[in-house]
């Protein structure tokens, strides 16, 4: 079983609650994926990083890829593909940019720089946004053709993502299309193209909403999904 989470966003209590929940599962979790947004403009971001870097004995070493907030850190430190943190400032303002700067040390940013963009395991792409970019936000409302495109780009059958923070599964079934190409020298007959069943999974968000974390368990053998909700802190006792 894989545990897939995203969006801790500098919320240590939320991360601890999810780790505890993973330990409580009857099935053994063999892989722990964190699909980015470990940090945010939150003072506890450093503590979250330390916790991820140093799992307790008996805990899994998380497999971590970059998210949107990490990308903003790179921009702030002049290390990313973006020259300026324009997206960060446009969305959250200068104040937040300053807070992010104060919350994540240069040393941590260097460590984040070494993370993967995503993981390709079996026929699954695990990534923060999509095969297009870290900012690409897939939701149940995303046009299905767009989702199919994100899958086809990397020839994956399942795409697990965390950008939206939502928990969802979109199954794309029985896609078909008739296509033909005419060139100056050639007229190709009409071909009908179909795809296997594919899906996009929103794995939830650990730290954004205080007191409530969501994440996803996935069995790669049976392809079964199990969406988990964990209540913690002030709302303790309401577990699902």
């Amino acid at each position: 079983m894989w545990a897939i989470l995203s969006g801790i966003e500098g919320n240590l209590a939320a991360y601890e609650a999810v780790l505890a929940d993973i330990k409580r599962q009857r099935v053994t979790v063999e892989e722990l994926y964190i699909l980015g947004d470990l940090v945010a403009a939150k003072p506890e971001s450093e503590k979250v990083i330390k916790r991820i870097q140093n799992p307790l004995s008996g805990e899994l070493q998380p497999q971590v890829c970059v998210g949107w907030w990490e990308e903003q850190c790179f921009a702030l430190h002049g290390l990313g593909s973006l020259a300026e943190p324009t997206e960060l400032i446009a969305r959250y303002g200068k104040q937040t940019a300053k807070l992010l700067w104060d919350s994540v040390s240069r040393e941590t940013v260097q460590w984040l720089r070494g993370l993967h963009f995503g993981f390709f395991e079996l026929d699954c792409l695990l990534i923060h946004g999509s095969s297009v970019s870290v900012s690409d936000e897939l939701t149940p409302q995303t046009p299905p053709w767009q989702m199919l495109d994100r899958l086809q780009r990397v020839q994956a059958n399942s795409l697990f993502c965390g950008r939206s923070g939502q928990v969802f599964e979109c199954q794309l079934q029985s896609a078909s299309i008739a296509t033909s190409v005419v060139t100056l020298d050639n007229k190709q007959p009409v071909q009908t193209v179909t795809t296997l069943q594919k899906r996009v999974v929103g794995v939830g968000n650990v730290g954004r909403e205080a007191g409530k974390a969501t994440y996803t368990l996935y069995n790669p053998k049976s392809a079964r999904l199990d969406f988990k909700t964990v209540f913690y802190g002030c709302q303790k006792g309401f577990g699902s």
Partner: protein
Amino acid sequence: MKIAVMSCIHGNYEALNEVLIDIDRHSAEKIYCVGDLVGYGPYPNEVVKLIRSLDIPTAQGCWDEDIVEGLNACECSYPSLLAEKRGKLAHEWTNKEVHPEVRQYLAQLPHTLKENNLCFVHGSPNSNHEYLLPEMDAFAALERVLASNADVLFCGHTHIPYVRTLDSAQLQVKVHQPQNKEERSISFNAPLKRIINVGSVGEPRHGRPNATYVVYDTETEEVILREVEYDYKKTCQAIIDRGLPPIFAWRLARGLEFAEKADDPTHVCER
């Protein structure tokens, strides 16, 4: 109404002239251009001047953008290292050559032109560096047309013309969200869509030196891929005389860009 659509003139004045005459013969009422007015060829200023004097609506090509913004696109713009090296030489030459008002004109060109159910882009709706190759995954191709909000997507950039028909697209989607007990099932259908790659006026790569462009009838929806002979030797000579790398004359005379293919044509540079 008949329209003519062209792309990738690349400073080839001779070819543009001959194509304009051919467009006249086909009595197209309006001409559109999907960019790459400059680069590779010997007459960037003259080509821009002619396009402007005819008031031809033009979308910005990757070369037009690079001349304005400097070559800051990554190596992914080129199909290979060799192509990149040659491209850089051409870029430097063109960059020195273009007049300030030409640069200004290229800078203000829009990424996309839209006319009713027709959309005009250089590469793709995502980026003027993305190649829409004819063998691209059909669903991905459909997504590009749908993203453009049109029925017909005109593009260039590959320098080889084609018409791709995408029809009877169907897709069944089942959405499951834990907060909703019920699964939602939705069917999607897309009506007939087309991608029309208009080839290249000034730097063809379909295996012959002739200029290519497209005539489209908005009423009958008929597409004619046009191949126009012109005095390419004149352009080849000018390439050499004006000090551009002779390899550009060599390949113009053959209508080839060797056998180079992009590793990942859908890769969009984010730099």
